[in-house]
């Protein structure tokens, strides 16, 4: 398919996700607790779009490869090495904002 409104259903049913390094794709997948292989295509993407993928890789949340090493990665991967991705804390932001605005 070209564009779907939401990949939530596909993600729910997946056992493994292989994605480009787009932030939305990465985060949505990790939040659903699915193992993720990020395929990096340096020619196609901005430097800044890689920042998150690289950080997630450093923190052990995703596997990374490029187009030519994808097959090798799939053959040799050990998904048990991936660390679960903890959720963010919007409540900390709310607390901060309340203090700033004077509601606290």
């Amino acid at each position, binding site marked *: 398919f070209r564009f779907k409104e939401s990949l939530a259903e596909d993600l729910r049913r997946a056992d493994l996700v292989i994605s480009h390094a787009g*932030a*939305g794709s990465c*985060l949505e997948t990790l939040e659903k607790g699915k193992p993720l292989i990020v395929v990096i295509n340096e020619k196609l993407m901005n*430097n*800044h*779009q890689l*920042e*998150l993928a*690289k*950080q997630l890789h450093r923190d052990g949340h995703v596997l990374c490869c490029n187009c030519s090493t994808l097959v090798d990665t799939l053959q040799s991967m050990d998904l048990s090495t991936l660390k679960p991705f*903890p959720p*963010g*804390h*919007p*409540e*900390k*932001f*709310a607390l*901060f*904002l*309340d203090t*700033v*605005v004077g*509601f606290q």
Partner: protein
Amino acid sequence: TGGHTTEILRLLSCLSESYSPRHYIFADSDKMSEAKILSFEQKRSETFSNSQFTLDRIPRSREVRQSWTSSVVTTLYSILYSLPLTYKLKPDLVLCNGPGTCVPVCISALLLGLLGIKRAIIVYVESICRVETLSLSGKILYYFSDYFIVQWPHLKEKYPKSVYLGRIV
């Protein structure tokens, strides 16, 4: 736009109903944000009965990778457009998270403050995608916002005046 909208709605998710009415401003070229916002507010109204919000569109300041010179022109146009809107809304708080759309609105809010018409608190939250470098909006608003929030420690080191609360989306 897209990811920015998803992030900002998450930022709003834990705010109390004191943050009301909410005025959403987004780019006229943005097709998906309106649906996301409506869905968010719809869910919110199930918990808070008196939920109030409005939606406004402004011309997009800059397309991705648009040239510098034409960006200045389109941003100026967006500022001219957003000034009367900001004047009408007279916000107490401006919360933004990085799309080019936010720069004209923040500049308008700053101008209103300088002219003594309405002083808003400007809070900027840099996107979670920004781990090592700031977005262009971030680089500009780091100097003009009252509170500048980053979500990764490296940025806090690089930009000491920023606030680091960890990942908040």
